[in-house]
Every structure is written in C-alpha cells, then in structure tokens.
C-alpha cells in the first residue's frame, strides 16, 4: 500500500496470447531481502505488464513459451532484467533488485500503460473513473460519477432516489448504462449505480458520444460501463461497514479465492444499505399549506417517507487461466430493494405510503478464450438471463402536507387526494420481466497490429403485467408485446507507425423486431390482432488516436449512431394514454469528438496531466411525445410519439490533474456546452434548452501523510468542491423558474492502520449546509457525517 499510487498506475493488461502459454510468478525483493511492493514487472516483447503487491509478489499470465526477458522497474530500485526460459505452465522466478540512489531515481520512466490510460488513449472520448480511493470511503458510486468531467448525475433526493444521467447534454434513453458490458436493465433496479458500492467496482468507463464496438447498442449520447472486480490471482477478503447521518447504514463484503493448481476460481460479493433519508429541507418548494389554502414557503421540515433498503449478492465460480479457457465463470446475482417514494419528479406534493419493491435473479456465464482453434482468434461470450419483478403500491387516499401530517380542509377533516391515491389512482402493480442479454465478441489478428472483430448483442424482453387490485387470474386474455433487438458491429482496429497511430473503424447494424398481440371485442365478437414489425438500420464511425510524443495523444472520433424507437412508442400503450405510431422512424445522431491528452509529465517530484475535448452532437428525427389537445375533441387526452426536428449540442470539457511527491493530488475539471434548439420556425432557434445544467466545475484535493500517528500508518485528507451554474427551467427568461447557483463542498479523511488490514474513514458532506438541488426544485441533503471501517485480509 505504500506505493499505492504507483500500484494503481501500473496494473495488468493482457493483449494477444501466442500458441502455448504459461504463468510466471515470483517475489521481487531488495538486497536486504525486503519485499519491493509497487514495482513494475514486465516482459516487453510479449506486451505483458504487472505490478508487485504488498508482499512483492507478481504474476504474469499467458506468457508464450520460449526465451523471455523479464524487466523490473521501480521508483525505489535500479532497473533489472533477467532472462528466463518458459517451457511449462507455471514458472517461478524470484528477482532481487538493488535499491536506487537519487540519481537513478530521476531516470525511471514508466513505459507501460495502465488499463485506465490504455482506454483513455484508444481514440474514443472516454474517461475512466478509478474506484480505488472511493472504495474505502463513504462515497456513492453516483457521487463518484458526478465528479467526472462531462457527467452530470441528477438525483431527486438522497440515497436510493431516482437518478438520471446527463452526458455532455444528452440524457434519458440516449445514454446507456452497462455492467460489464451488459445493459443494466438486465439486473433490474435493485442492482444499479445507486447501490453497487465502489468497493465492488474495478473501474467505470464513461464514453461520450462515440461508442466502441463492444458496447454496441442503439444509443446516441454515450455510455457508462461499470466493470466489476474480477476474480484475481490473489486470495483476499474485504469487508466494510459505514454509519452516518439520516440513520444511514451501508456495508459490503467481498471474497476472492483461486486454487493455483486447478485454476478453480470463486468470488463472492454482497452489500446491504439502509437509510431513513429523513434530511431537512427548507427551499422555496418546501411549502406548508393551511386549511384555507394559504401557502407558507421555505417551510423548514424533515422528509418523512423516504426510506430505502437494499441487499444484494453475487457469486461467481469457475476456472481461470486453464488450458481450455482463459476465463470460464458461472455467475448468480440476486438483489432486493424497497423504496419509500416521498414525491414525484418535483417536491410540490409529498407522498405517504407509496412504495416500490424490486427483486432480480440473474444467471450468467462468461467464457473467454484467446487463440481459439487457431492462433490470433479470440472469443468472448457474456450472457445473462434475468428474472425481474417490480411491485409498486400506492393505495393511501389522504393528501399530505410537508409537515408529515395529513392535509386538513376548512371543516377540519382530512382531505382525500383527487385520484384516490398519492400519485394517481390506487395501484398495486406487479410486473414480471424476463430478460435475455447475450454479448459475444470474436476477433482475429490479421497480422501484427491489425485486428478484425465482430460483436453481436442480443437483447430480448418478455413482460407480464398484473393489476393486483383487479386480479383476473392467469387465464385472462391480455395484450402482450414482445421485443427483441440485435446490434451487430464489425470493427477494424489497426496500430500503425510504430504503434503511434491507433485507428478503429466500425460499422453497426441495428435490427429490431417488435411484435404485439391485441384483442378487440366488438359487439360480443373477438378479433385477435397480431402486429409484427422488423426494422434494420445502419450506423458507422471512426476513432483515431495519434501519439505525437510519448506523453501527448491527439484523439478524435466520429459516428453516426441510431436509436430505435421503443415498443411503447411504436405500438402505443392504452393504459398510459399513448397512441400507436407505426411510422415512427429511428432517431439518428451524428457525434464528433476532438481532444487531446497531455501527460503524464514528470518534473522532479511534480506530475501533471491535462485532458481536453470538444464535442458536437447533432440529432435528427428526435422521438418525442406530441401534445394532442384538439379543440373539437377536448376529452381525448392522449399523446403520440412523433419524430421532430431537433437539437444540437456543442461544447468542451477539460481536466487538469497534478501530483506532488505522490503525497498531494489535485484535480479540477469543467464541462460547458450549449444544447441548442435547431427548429428554425421557433423564436428560440439557437437558444439553450431549458432544464439542463450546462456549466459545471468539480475540483478535489487529496493529501497523504505517512507515519503521522503510528509508524507506517497512513492518513489521507480529502476535499471536494462542486459548482453548477444556474439554469432556467422554462423557455422564457423568468426569475421564478431558475435553478440557482449551487456550490457543494465535502471533506473527508481516512486512516490506514500500520497492519494495513484496517482502514477507517470519516466524511463530512455539504460542510456549509448549502441549499443544493439536483433535479429541478428537489432539495438534496444538507450537512451530513459518515464513518466507515474497512477490513482487508490478503492471502488467507
């Protein structure tokens, strides 16, 4: 852990594997026999790289048989190379290095790319969020994302509340969320970014605009891919528990075991979160209403029905690095959540007794094999089948006031809500979904540096609805819809000019099949209407990265992306007053990115890296609901989805990070864009779309103090700052419809005990108790305190 920074800068990345391969492992130690942690161990010609752990151990897998040169470099030792002959599946090589003096230290350069850096210089506009620091702290995955350049997480309240992601001005269905490359909807809302603790996440990749082939989907704005921790070589157990304001309790545990001999690997992880979310609010939309209707604004009160509870677990078992598979894992994932719903999109009217419960069981398989059948042919299959259940209950007929009491009318009696329940009509809706999601990838190395790959994504949903307030039994006739889509992409990746120019040319074929069966009764006679619709669209793109100097990369990409209309949008949904529109065309977006990455520059003890990106998105045939309020038939309050001419978003973002002496780390980023209306018939032509935050700044600082309280302990201090510029929420200029400027500041500290087994941390969020909002008019928590303890055992 002493060289944690270095350790996470340099981690494993595996590329091509030659015919017969073996594993090389061992311990790196100095002339005194002391382990050297955080050293880089690499076989340059085989493109293999790893870092030593706290005990100085390393392991390189998939090393081709034959004579190999192993090189060790480290900030604290002199470089050393040893030649080894690999001719068996497991080779042990212990390497002894010499401690470096100051002069030598200066010459050390790190040549390997981390997974983070490798992805970030791949030609796509992508940011990789490291979860290592957050894992030991009281930080939600969503908070981590919200600090990422160009990402805005809009949450309506505290932990567990509804979340919307905005990537460079694109939002909603346009943004895809993936877990290990599979759509998050596969796992259901009980397993999402709200409740997956950072400790279970390896890294988060945020792609803006142009998507790589392996994340194929019908998306326009970009994607967030959560890469969960995989079974690694080291056996370990970690556990953490945190308690804080608003009776918030969070815990997670994960364990990892691999039997070296047989390759049997198993990994378990689980989490539990519960909170009352009863934080105080006092904003303009917190109002108390007297029996005669008179409104008291800025009413200081506590949220009274906003609790959240979730529990989940994931078990994987299989084999890794065996002859017949690099990875073969079977997985089972179960999760359950309960949420009290305090209000709708806005805070206007508080709810009491509206709850949602979700459950998901997901069975999955992951198979990965390099050099399948022939040399250079790699295959990867990731498939899941999930059983999801969502239950929403809302039956309480009384209107509530923000003081948590039922509203009282002029006569002193409680007031009933208009539609009979909190949000609308009383409901007990039970929805079962079965989702099949298969992602496969076949790639072939044509010759060195040139690779052709074929990706296929299949997604199908089968949905069963039940209204438990008016149950009809399983034999009842029901309208049913089935929906499946395929996205096939063909990628050609090339590394040329001495690996300095990386290009990725791709085309995607989008295919969608939607079928529905309707029953229509007319004067006693039944007709069955079966509708089938199949549509195919094509998109294409190019991503280019050019390494001008070893630490200067220019990155650019362009794509024509497609989003297919949803089944509800095409076939309508009578229960939601949506009319069908069979002529709905897919939505199309042209995405462009141009950017650069500079760094990391090392000058003495200073390290600096700079990132900048400009982007443009142009959307055509945007799918939107149309208002249909005809004068002659006012009673028809139905809407229809239509294609309309649309928006354009142009902006830029940047990030600067600076490190001093591996003790001080500072980062600041900003994102500013214009989402403009491009409807020439409107007076708002070329003006900013309302209700979208368009300028944000995030900054954070982290300082490490060694040996402060105890010898070989570590104290980390953190500070984060967030700024959101005010934005209007309606088209005209109006002071009443502006979300005000927001500043949020958090501080935290974590302390690692000398044994390195226990890390404890304290976080204070929103230290100034500022009035901060996320979704329009929904106030977020004020000052809050959280304490967390992490426990780690390695190599049991």
């Amino acid at each position, binding site marked *: 852990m002493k060289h944690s920074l270095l350790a996470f800068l340099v981690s494993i990345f595996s590329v091509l594997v030659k015919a017969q391969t073996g594993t090389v492992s061992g311990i790196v130690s100095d002339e005194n026999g002391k382990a050297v942690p955080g050293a880089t161990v690499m076989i340059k010609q085989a493109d293999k790289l790893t870092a030593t752990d706290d005990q100085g151990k390393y392991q390189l897998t998939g090393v081709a048989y034959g004579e190999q040169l192993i090189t060790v470099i480290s900030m604290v030792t002199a470089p050393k190379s040893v030649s080894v002959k690999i001719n068996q599946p497991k080779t042990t090589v212990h390497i002894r290095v010499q401690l470096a003096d100051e002069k030598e230290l200066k010459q050390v350069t790190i040549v390997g790319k981390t997974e983070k850096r490798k992805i970030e210089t791949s030609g796509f506009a992508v940011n990789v969020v490291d979860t290592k620091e957050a894992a030991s702290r009281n930080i939600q995955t969503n908070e981590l994302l919200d600090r990422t350049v160009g990402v805005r997480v809009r949450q309506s309240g505290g932990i567990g509340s509804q979340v919307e992601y905005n990537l460079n001005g694109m939002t909603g269905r346009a943004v895809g969320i993936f877990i290990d490359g599979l759509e998050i909807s596969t796992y259901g809302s009980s397993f999402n970014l709200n409740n997956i603790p950072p400790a279970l996440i390896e890294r988060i990749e945020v792609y803006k605009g142009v998507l790589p082939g392996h994340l194929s989907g019908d998306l326009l704005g970009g994607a967030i891919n959560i890469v969960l921790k995989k079974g690694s070589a080291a056996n370990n157990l970690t556990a953490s528990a945190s308690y804080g304001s608003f009776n918030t309790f969070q815990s997670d545990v994960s364990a990892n075991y691999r039997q070296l001999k047989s390759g049997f690997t198993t990994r378990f992880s689980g989490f539990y979160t519960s909170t009352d979310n009863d934080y105080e609010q006092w904003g303009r939309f917190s109002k108390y209403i007297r029996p005669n209707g008179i409104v008291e604004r800025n009413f200081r009160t506590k949220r009274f029905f906003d609790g959240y509870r979730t529990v989940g677990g994931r078990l994987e078992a299989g084999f890794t690095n065996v002859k017949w598979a690099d990875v073969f894992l079977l997985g089972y994932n179960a999760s359950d959540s309960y949420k009290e719903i305090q209000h709708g999109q806005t805070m206007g009217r508080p709810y009491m007794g509206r709850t949602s419960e979700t459950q998901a069981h997901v069975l999955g398989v992951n198979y990965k094999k390099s050099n399948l059948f022939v040399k250079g042919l790699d295959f990867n299959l990731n498939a899941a089948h999930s059983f999801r259940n969502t239950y929403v209950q809302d039956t309480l007929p009384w209107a509530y006031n923000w003081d948590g009491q039922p509203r009282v009318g002029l006569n002193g009696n409680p007031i009933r809500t*208009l539609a009979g329940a909190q949000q609308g009509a009383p409901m007990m809706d039970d929805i079962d979904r079965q989702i099949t999601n298969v992602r496969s990838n076949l790639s072939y190395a044509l010759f060195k540096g040139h690779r052709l790959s074929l990706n296929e994504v299949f997604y199908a949903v089968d949905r069963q609805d039940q209204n438990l307030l008016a149950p009809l039994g399983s034999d009842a006739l029901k309208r049913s819809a089935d929906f499946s889509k395929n996205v096939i992409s063909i990628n050609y990746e090339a590394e040329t000019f001495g690996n300095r120019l990386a290009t990725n040319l791709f085309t995607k074929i989008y295919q969608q099949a939607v079928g529905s069966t309707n029953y229509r009764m007319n*004067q006693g006679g039944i007709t069955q209407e079966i509708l089938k619709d199949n549509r195919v669209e094509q998109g294409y793109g190019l991503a280019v990265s050019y390494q001008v100097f070893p630490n200067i990369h220019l990155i650019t990409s362009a794509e024509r992306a497609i989003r297919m209309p949803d089944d509800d949008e095409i076939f309508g949904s009578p229960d939601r007053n949506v009319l069908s529109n069979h002529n709905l065309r897919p939505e199309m977006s042209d995405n462009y990115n141009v950017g650069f990455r500079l760094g990391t520059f090392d000058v003495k003890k200073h390290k600096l890296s700079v990132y900048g990106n400009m982007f443009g998105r142009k959307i055509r045939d945007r799918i939107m609901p149309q208002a249909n309020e005809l004068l002659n038939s006012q009673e028809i309050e139905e809407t229809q989805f239509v294609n309309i001419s649309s928006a354009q978003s142009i902006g830029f973002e940047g990030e600067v990070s600076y490190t001093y002496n591996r003790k001080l780390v500072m980062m600041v980023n900003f994102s500013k864009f214009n989402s403009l209306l491009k409807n020439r018939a409107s007076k708002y032509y070329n003006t900013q779309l309302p209700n979208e935050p368009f300028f944000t700044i995030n900054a954070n600082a982290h300082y490490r103090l060694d040996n402060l309280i105890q010898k070989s302990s570590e104290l980390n201090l953190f500070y984060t700052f967030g700024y959101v510029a005010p934005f209007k929420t309606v088209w005209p200029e109006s002071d009443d419809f502006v979300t005000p400027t927001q500043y949020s500041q958090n501080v935290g500290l974590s302390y690692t005990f000398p044994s390195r087994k226990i890390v404890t941390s304290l976080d204070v969020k929103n230290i100034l108790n500022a009035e901060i909002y996320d979704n329009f008019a929904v106030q977020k928590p004020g000052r809050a305190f959280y304490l967390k303890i992490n426990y780690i055992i390695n190599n049991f």
Partner: protein
Amino acid sequence: MKTINSGLLGMALFAAVSATLFSSCKKDGSDSSLEENSTRWITLSAAIDDPENTTVGDGDAGTMVYSVSLADAKNPDVTINAFQNGIHVKSDRTARLQASADGKFLYNIQYTGDDGGIFNKYKVLGGKNFVPDGPEVETATYVSTSPRWLKAAEGVGVAVRATANPVLYGGTTPLFVFQKRTAKTDVLTLDLNNPQILKTTSFDLALTDQEVAAGYYVSRIDVPVVNKAGNKVYIGVAVSKHNTGSFTIDATGQPVFAADNSVKSWAKTLVLDYPSLANPKIITSDKTRGNTNGYRSTMQYVGTDGHVYQATSGELAGGGGSKILRINATTNDYDPNYVFSLDQALGITNSYIESWKYAGNGVGFVVYNIAGKGGYIAKVNLNDKTATKYTLPNETTLNFRQIQNIAIEGDELLIAVAPIGQDGNIYVFNRVTGEMTKGAKLVNEVGGQYIGAY
C-alpha cells in the same frame, strides 16, 4: 446571475451574497416609486410558443403580461410589445389569468408544473409592474395542478375540476360488460379580495341512468358563473361517450372501452347552490347537442335581464354550429323557448364560438371560427337574434383558440387581434353604435399569440 471566474472564496462569497439578495427580494418586490392612481390600465396577455412542440402557437411555454393606459390601448399610433417589454407570469404553461372589472388587479392560477394550481394576485401598476398582493393560495389539492377557473362574480373565483372515474364493468374475461362511468367532481370558491379558499366540495357526478347505460359521462367542466340572485353557480359541462360494445384488452387483462365520437350529448350545465356548493344538479337543454365548457375563456354571463346567457361549442359538423342558450333567472333551468343560433343569424354553417362577451342590454360580441378555420368577430343582438359580422384583416388566418379575455370599459370593448407570429392591433368596439376602430399596434414574435385584454 452571471458566472464568475475567481477562486473558491469568491464563489462562496458570491453564493452568500446572492442568496441574501434572492431571499430579500422575494419578501419585498415592490417599488416604492410606483403608486396606485386612477389610471384604467388595460393588461394584455401574450402566450409564448413552446418550441419543443410541433404545434405552432400552442402557448405552452408560458405567458407574458404588459399593461398600458386605456387611452394608449385605443391609440393606433401606440406600439405595444408584451413579449419584449412585459413580465413573465409565473406558470409553466399558459397562465389562466383573470382581472378585476376595474383592471386594478390581475389574478393568476398557475397551470401545471411544481407550483401548478397556486393562485397569485397582482396589483396592476402599468408597464411591466405587477406587484404581488396578498398570500399565495394552493388549490391543486382540490382541483389539480391544471385547474379550470374563472372570476365567477366580482371578488369571487370559482375553480372546478371533473375527472372521469374508471369505467365500472361486469362480466368475466374476456366477455366484459360496460356498466357505468361517473366523474369525480371538485369545486371550490376563492376570495379574490382577501386571497383564501372559502368553500370546497367534492362529489361523484352521474348522468341519468339511461344516459349512463348508453355510455355517456361527464368528462370536463369549466366556466363557472354565479347567477344574479347570488344563490346558484352554473358550471359548463363537456359530455363524452363510450361505445359500450367495443373494447380492447390491456396488458393486465382489463378492458379499455372505445370512445364513440359519432354522437354528441344534449347541452348540459351543472348547477350548485351558492355559496354552500351543495345540491349538485344537472340541467339539460334540448336546443343543441354540444359542450358548454368552452376552452380558455368565459362562456356565460349574467344578462341585464337577470338571465344567464351561455354559449355552446363543439357541435358535430352539420349540428347547426354554436348556439347561445338561456338559463332562466327564476327557474334556474334552461329556458325551453330560447335559443340563439349564430349559424342562422349570420347565414353560415358550423360556426364555433371560441369566446364572447355580454356587453349589456342583450348585445354581445362573439369571437368565432367557421368549421375550425379562421377567426371572426360579430356583434350579436340576443333579443332580436340578429348578428353583424365585422371585417378584420387576415380573418382567414386568425386563430382565437387560446383567447382568454375581452376587456370592457364603459361602452367600449377591447379585443387583441393578431395572427399567430404576426403583428396585429387592439380593436375597439362600441356596444352602442357598433362602430369598430383600430387601437394600438401589437408587436408579435415567432409563434407568439396575444390571448387576452383585461
């Protein structure tokens, strides 16, 4: 508020300062230099087009208001631009504005949004000076965030809402049998002088057994007016109909009964006792098959003779067009012997009254379209059942769908006339001489629409 570029401290300081300013100006927004005086202000309201919708001129992006003196409003040399010079009235979508008879106060209930259903009262002080007066009043709990409301008598607002309950049905899957549909109805009265809710009521509204069995139900109510005696409130009604023998089955297996737009119900009005809001009763006219709930503006007035005159709309094509019906002051029921047909009086077919104003002594001014097209104004005489049409520029392209109010001061009525997105004028009509003169010029903007004069 502008963005700033200094350091963290600066930002924090700025936040503190702006927060203070923000909260303080909320408490006291009045400008001491403005005094109430005897000027008769004419307030113009203008709806902003929602650029995200395909319908141009829907007014869904909010409303601007601007007031000028009566003399300026009538002066053709004056130019008014409410979009540029006015102030945005609090409302996500088109505000539902009303005003006191003397034009001194403007009343607004916000339509949709987080503060939908919130009542605000403003003192009119000329130009863009509308000063909040009295407390805000919440009506959404009773009449939803998109209430239908009007000033039903001077100083009294009545807000209403009717929403059809789910269809009751019998039978077993899939042979469901239609039984009935009723409407949950809510009505409240508002004190406009001292803003607060005075009275509320809620009941299920059903039509006659025969009508119910045929699939008829009340789908909307609007345009309340208090009668001359001050003991009844009349509320306009829209009636819809299901085809009871035809339905589809939804995803949960429940039937969704089809709408039947081939027939229209006879015109009806909901009558409640006032101010108790008790004894709901439906009265039915056999003079026309149409709606009495209007769309955005007042459709019924207490006449000089004490009877209530009520315009209808939404008659089916060939149904004889809009009528003006009479509710008798003594029986509080439709006058079986009275009907005014705009079609007959003008010799046209399928007229559709979008708004009108009773100007006294049986004289009214009617704003209408013909078969859904154009925008026309006629002077009507309800006693001798005659009508005279005026000639307006751009008549065929005018659209009064969103019109909310016609101002009246002395013998003169003022109507804002401008095609969507184009400039127009205030037109001044003399109720005695019938003369029409051109008033101040109205400057429009893309998709914009002048929708009211108060």
